[in-house]
């Protein structure tokens, strides 16, 4: 394996891991549901995308052919993460989840 491929795989792995950890810290620490929704979507798209890209580079560097599973998982996650976040936010607005105190306006009470 060439050293450039090793550097690229290690950097992408660490980048994806750091993003996943930051998303989970945001999910655990932020004050209310609507702010908590912000963290895991970044972990989904950027974190798992970077880890998946490092997997693609690794398996093509050790001589296997490029499979379609990684690309399918990446495209599927990139498509479905905003949809699930949107539908969860709609459900939370419908059942009236509490916001933090200094949120301005309540557009769902019109």
């Amino acid at each position, binding site marked *: 394996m060439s050293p450039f491929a090793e550097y690229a795989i290690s950097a992408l792995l660490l980048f994806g891991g750091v993003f996943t950890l930051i998303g989970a810290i945001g999910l655990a620490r932020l004050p209310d*549901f609507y702010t908590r929704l912000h963290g895991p979507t970044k972990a989904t798209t950027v974190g798992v995308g970077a880890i998946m890209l490092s*997997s693609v580079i690794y398996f093509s560097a*050790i001589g296997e052919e490029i*499979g379609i599973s990684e690309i399918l998982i990446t495209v599927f996650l990139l498509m479905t993460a905003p949809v699930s976040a949107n539908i*969860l936010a709609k459900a939370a607005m419908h059942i009236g989840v509490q916001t933090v105190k200094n949120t301005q306006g309540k557009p769902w009470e019109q």
Partner: protein
Amino acid sequence: MITTALYLTIGMVTLAALLNVYRLIKGPDEPDRVLAIDTLNINAIALIILLGITLGTRMYLESALLIAVMGFVSTVAMAKYLKRGSVIE
């Protein structure tokens, strides 16, 4: 070098999964718990890919694809149940 980065990344993703379990147990409302389970699905996909890189095989990627599809369907079903009171009307 890849081995060190791989172990560090596995540690970080496992710590992220533990933080998600904390939110799953504590979460004051139902959407918090649904969001925590959705994020746990994502972390399981990341751990399966890292396992595949560790073992040098590509056999486990189909299970990651299955977890992705089923996680999305279950998240949408739970959100629709919370919003409407039923999944299929």
